[in-house]
Each structure stands twice: as structure tokens, then as C-alpha cells.
């Protein structure tokens, strides 16, 4: 059964290996150059007082490969689900070869568990290898980037790709098992996977751990803008802050009154159209305003990774279990 | 002298006669006209089945029946061999009988009977006299 599974999986494995190899070569060639560039421009930028220019230039380096990497990390699990997962059972049932495979001398249970196990492990290994390569290559860029907790970066690093791939794979197999036709199963897999991943990233991930709630006096160094706004008859005034918490994932940040409610004005004397920014800032500094920042600190990155991976793996296991149960009872 | 298998069977699909009876008939026919003699081996079941594409039980049944009639003997692992002969008439009697039959056929044709009538006449007479044989045990001339 192991031989047969490998033989049927061979073509897909070759394609994936080829793609990984190509990417590895691209990384191996450009990686050291990136490190060198970082060492010569960004590391020394403070001394030369051109940090923002240097960083901007550096972040634009190897732009094509950066975008390609992001695309591969996002699309990778979905592709695994569509091309490794969906056809696993659907193709056999579509073509009728399941009637050959299930009437040899192995039970359906053994047939499915070997196929699920081998291809599932291959998915996770491919994802793990990919993530390793990408994390290594991106490390210079990450030092000047938005931090690993940022939603667009989080999914491209660490171990979550392994979880996503396992889940997408199991999802594909389930879709194929229920739908019996490869192409519709692929479409359903893509749609459901995209929905789950998007929903999870938007709604669930931030709440995996209770966020840190920073309440303190307004840090004038964090104030980045002031402004007036007008509803009919009322003029409101707001102060905006950009907290300097490197690598943190900030959910909300606002300026409040001493009592704790959002500061909305009125426009203080010394601020407004006729006054300079620094004069206004001086006024604000004397107003005993406070700030409330709700965020997840950068140090929690690996905790979040483990939690999320565990959840996706658990989903994958549940789906796989369902497939094993269903295939024994409901398919001919 | 090893003569191998001597006869080949054939089947008439629409004759209304059961296949195993056809096989028996062909063996008996072959024995009568001297195509098969004692010591000859009948085709193996596998050979017959391969050539005619019929159920092996059919061949087995025919061979069993022939064995029951005392005409063949099955030797397990080796094959089925002819061990008996058929009828009291020997080969020698065939010649004169054939000549007599030719003369009779000539007479029948000269008297104006066509082939179909000759066949009908022969068959009905043959059948009624066969019944007489059953009753008396002798050919009632």
C-alpha cells in the first residue's frame, strides 16, 4: 500500500520538489546579498542620519522575489489542498478505480489511512521546508519591517504554514470524498480554505490570548497628529497617536480624558487654524490626557504560532477522522 | 507410439441438443468409424474448454458419462483414455453396409424421391424401428 501510494503521488511530489528547489536556488543566490546590503546600508544608517532613506531603499530590494514569496506562502497551502487533497479520493471515485483498489485484500481503512498519512505528512514537510527557507531569507528584511505579528507577515513565518497545509489537505480530501468529482472539489476546497483562513486571521487570532491593555498618561513622543472635525453645529478635536512598540500588533490606540472616555474636544485654546503645531502640542501636554493602547506584544509571536498551528492541526485531524469514518460506510 | 490427442470437438449452438450430449455423441461417432481406438487419449478438459469456450462441468459430465458407458477411463493427473469399443459391428461390417446403403439411395432417387423426402423416410423409419428395438431388444427388420 505504501508503494502504491507513493507511485500515485509521484508526479505531484516531483512538481513540488521542483518548485521548492527553484525557490531554494533563488534564495541561496539573493540571500547573502541581502545580508551584505543590510550590513552596509541599514546597520550604519544611524551614523549617516539617513535611516528612513536607507530603510526604504533596502525594503525595495529583490522586490519581485519578495512578492513571489508572499504569493507562494499564501497560495501554497491552498494549492496543496486543491492538488494533493481534493483528487486523493475524488479522482479514484470519478474514474472508478476505487472499485479496483477496495476489492484487493486491503480494507478501506488501511487504504485511506496510508494515503492520508503519507500525503498529509508530505504536505506538512513541504510547508515546513518552505517556511524555513522563507524565514531564513527574510530575516534581514524583517529587522526593518513591521514585525512578525503583523497579519501579512505572520502567515509567512514560523510553523503556521505547516498547520495551514495540513488543514487544507484534509479539507481537500473531505471535499473530494463528499463531492466525488475532482474539479468541483478543488473549487470548494479553495473557497472554504480562503474563508476559514481569512475569518480566523480577522476574528480569532488576536483573541487567542487576552491582549495587553496599556493605560497611562499621554506620551507626547507618540503624538503624531491633531485635527479638527465637524458635525453640524459641533466642532470636535482629536489627537492621534502612533505607539512606538516595536513588532507589536496594535488593535486600538486612542487618547482619552482623565476619566477614561475618548477625548473629542472641544478645541482647546491654543489649537486650531491660527496656531502652530508646536504651540498646540504644548497646550495638549498640559491637559492631563491619557492614552489607552490595546495590543499583543512582539514577544508573544511564538505563543501565537503554536496556538494557531495547534488549532489548524486539530481541525485537520477531525476532518481526517471524518473521512475515515465516512469512506467505510457511505461510498460505493 | 504416442499419438497425443486425436479428435477435436465442435459444437452446434442452435441444434437443441445439450452440449455434453454433443460431446458424447462425437466420441461415440469417432469410435464407430475408427478415428479413436483403445489407448488413445481424449483432449484434456482444459484443451476442450480452451477451444470451445464452454463450461468445464460440461466436459466433465460428458467424460463421466462415457466412463459410465464403459468407453473411457479417467486416470487422475494424466488424462482420459479410450478403453472400450462400440457395438457388435466391427469395422469390417462397415464396408458392405455402406455399399448396401449406396444401392438403396440410388434406388430411392431413381424412383423420383427428392433429398428431403429420402431424409424424412429414413428418419421416420429409423425412429419407429428404434422404438421396436427398445421393445423387443432386436432390430425388427
Amino acid at each position: 500500500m505504501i508503494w502504491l501510494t507513493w507511485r500515485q503521488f509521484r508526479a505531484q511530489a516531483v512538481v513540488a520538489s521542483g518548485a521548492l528547489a527553484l525557490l531554494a536556488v533563488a534564495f541561496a543566490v539573493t540571500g547573502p546579498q541581502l545580508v551584505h546590503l543590510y550590513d552596509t546600508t541599514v546597520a550604519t544608517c544611524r551614523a549617516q542620519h539617513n535611516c528612513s532613506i536607507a530603510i526604504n531603499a533596502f525594503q525595495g530590494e529583490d522586490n519581485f522575489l519578495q512578492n513571489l514569496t508572499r504569493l507562494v506562502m499564501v497560495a501554497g497551502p491552498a494549492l496543496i489542498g486543491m492538488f494533493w487533497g481534493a483528487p486523493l479520493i475524488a479522482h479514484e471515485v470519478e474514474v472508478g478505480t476505487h472499485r479496483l483498489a477496495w476489492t484487493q485484500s486491503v480494507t478501506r481503512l488501511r487504504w485511506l489511512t496510508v494515503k492520508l498519512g503519507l500525503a498529509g505528512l508530505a504536505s506538512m514537510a513541504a510547508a515546513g521546508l518552505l517556511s524555513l527557507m522563507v524565514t531564513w531569507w527574510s530575516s534581514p528584511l524583517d529587522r526593518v519591517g513591521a514585525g512578525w505579528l503583523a497579519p501579512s507577515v505572520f502567515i509567512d513565518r514560523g510553523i503556521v504554514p505547516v498547520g495551514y497545509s495540513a488543514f487544507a489537505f484534509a479539507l481537500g480530501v473531505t471535499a473530494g470524498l463528499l463531492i466525488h468529482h475532482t474539479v468541483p472539489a478543488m473549487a470548494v476546497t479553495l473557497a472554504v480554505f480562503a474563508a476559514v483562513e481569512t475569518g480566523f486571521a480577522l476574528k480569532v487570532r488576536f483573541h487567542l490570548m487576552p491582549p495587553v491593555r496599556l493605560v497611562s498618561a499621554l506620551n507626547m513622543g507618540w503624538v503624531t497628529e491633531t485635527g479638527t472635525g465637524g458635525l453640524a453645529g459641533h466642532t470636535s478635536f482629536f489627537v492621534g497617536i502612533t505607539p512606538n512598540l516595536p513588532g507589536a500588533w496594535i488593535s486600538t490606540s486612542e487618547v482619552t480624558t482623565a476619566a477614561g472616555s475618548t477625548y473629542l474636544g472641544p478645541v482647546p485654546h491654543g489649537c486650531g487654524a491660527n496656531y502652530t503645531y508646536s504651540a498646540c502640542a504644548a497646550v495638549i501636554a498640559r491637559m492631563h490626557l491619557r492614552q489607552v493602547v490595546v495590543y499583543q506584544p512582539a514577544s508573544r509571536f511564538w505563543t501565537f504560532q503554536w496556538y494557531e498551528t495547534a488549532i489548524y492541526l486539530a481541525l485537520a485531524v477531525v476532518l481526517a477522522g471524518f473521512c475515515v469514518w465516512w469512506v467505510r460506510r457511505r461510498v460505493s | 507410439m504416442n499419438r497425443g490427442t486425436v479428435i477435436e470437438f465442435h459444437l452446434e449452438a442452435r441444434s437443441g441438443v445439450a452440449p455434453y450430449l454433443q460431446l458424447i455423441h462425437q466420441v461415440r461417432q469417432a469410435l464407430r468409424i475408427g478415428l479413436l481406438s483403445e489407448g488413445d487419449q481424449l483432449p484434456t478438459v482444459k484443451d476442450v474448454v480452451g477451444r470451445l469456450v464452454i463450461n468445464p462441468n460440461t466436459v466433465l459430465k460428458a467424460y463421466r458419462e462415457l466412463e459410465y458407458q464403459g468407453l473411457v477411463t479417467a486416470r487422475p493427473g494424466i488424462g482420459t483414455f479410450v478403453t472400450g469399443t462400440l457395438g457388435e459391428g466391427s469395422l469390417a461390417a462397415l464396408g458392405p453396409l455402406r455399399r448396401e446403403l449406396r444401392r438403396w439411395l440410388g434406388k430411392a432417387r431413381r424412383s423420383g424421391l427428392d433429398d428431403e423426402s429420402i431424409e424424412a423416410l429414413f428418419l421416420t423409419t429409423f425412429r419407429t424401428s428404434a422404438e421396436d428395438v427398445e421393445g423387443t431388444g432386436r432390430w425388427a427388420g
Partner: protein
Amino acid sequence: MTAVLKAQGLGKRYRRRWALSDCTLDIPAGQVVGLVGPNGAGKTTLLHLAIGLLQPTTGQIEVLGDRPPANPAQLARVGFVAQNAPTYGGLTVAEHLRLGAHLNPGWDAVMARDRIERLGLEPRQRVGKLSVGQRAQLALTLAIAKKPELLILDEPVASLDPLARRDFLQGLMEAVVDQGISVVLSSHLVADLERVCDYLIVLVGSRVQIAGQVEHLLSTHHLLTGPRRDPARLPEDQHVISASHTDRQTTLTVRTEGPIHDPAWTVSKIDLEDLVLAYMSRPADAGRRPALEVQR
């Protein structure tokens, strides 16, 4: 004599429709069994129930003494070729044999290789490029080389040309001689089955109409022709299978164990094809119970 397949009130329903209903069978070993009936009659359903691809809705079925698919041991004793002989188009002939070897503990590699050679199949040929007849022969090889006690074939010759059909049945019959396998094969054409089957099951409208030894069926079914008469007025022990009338004449197909004494009838023998046709043209009669061969 042990039964190779036993069914009791077996039925299978898909949503509203009963694909097979009230099926009771007792098939002895050592036979080549023909399952014949029109398309959609339930032949594939019955065979899939026998091989364990389907589970019954009602009743039960036992194959070689076990309820299929009981366990790997039972799976190993039954060989199966599904309709259209499915094979892996991307694998070669040799890889299919390897599949058989890996998935079947009782695999006879020598026999499999010999058979492939005699069939003239090139081991390195991709199976997707073979003809329909060659693929059917390969599928049969896979089923035979696992040394089963029972072989189940679903319409094995339906899409084969006459030469391929003959070759297939020839190979099958030779395997029966060599290994003493029992065979159940289905077809919607009686002509395919006539020469090779010694037991027949007629399946029409998802029900078994008649089942028994071919010889017995042929000797107990007769064609009766005579002056126009109401079939209901025949004696109790003569069951009318089909009837047709002109103004003056009645033709009946009748099943009876005993002789027919009524001199008004001209009694003639019936061949297997007409027998099956008579059962196929019977109107659906829910109350009629199928006639079964008495187990000797």
C-alpha cells in the same frame, strides 16, 4: 455442498427507488453462475452487495460464509472486476502486477507474469494506451492471480468485440479449470452466458425472477402452442411465464416440473435466450415469488 453466495430477503434502496428487492438466493460452489437481466434491473447492485462495496438496506447476504466485506481474509478469497474493468491509466502493466503483489497476500506472481506474456501484453506499456479488450484481460489477470475461491465479474464482455469477448471467456474458463474457482458473471445478453454458465439467475425489475441449474431450467420450461385459451385455466402446477394470443392461437411459455398431458398443446423445447426473454417480458407482479432450485 457449501454455498458460495447466500442471500435472504436482500434489498437495497437509493432514496426512493429500490434497486434490488426481496432477493433470496442460494448459489452452490463450483459453478459458473450467469446473472442476466436488462439494464437497470439491479445486477450491478447485487454484485456490489456481494463484494462489499455496498451495504444492504434490508435482509442479508453471505459470501463464502462471511458477511462482506468482513475482513482482509475474506477480501482475499473473492476476486472482482467492476463494470468497464477500471484500471490505473497512468500505471504500466508491470506496475499493475506490482499493485496486485503488494495488496494481496495470496498473490501468484509467476502465474500473473505467465498470463500477461501469453496475452501478449507489454509489461512496460502504459495501461491507458491499451485497447478495451486488453484492459479487461489485465483486470481479469489481477483478479485471478490473487488465487480467489470466487470470482465476481460485472458485465465483463459488454464493451468487447467478438474476438476479444471469446479471448476473455476462454481465459476465464481455463482459469476455472486450473484453479477450480466459482464464478458469478453478469450480462444483459444471454448469448454471452449460454456456453459458459451452468447456473442462471434472471433479474428483472430489481427482483429475482428465476434461479437454477441451466439444465434443470431448460428441462422444466416449455413452449406450448395450441388453440386460443385462457392461461388462467391451466393446472396449478403449470406456471405461465408469458403468453401471447392471436384470434385463434395461444402461445405460452410455461414452467412445470411434471409432464404435460393435455393433447391440445404442441409442446416444444425452449432455448435459454427465449426463456430469459419470457421472464423479461413478464409484467411486474409484486405478488409473484421467484422459483428456486431445490438444493440437492
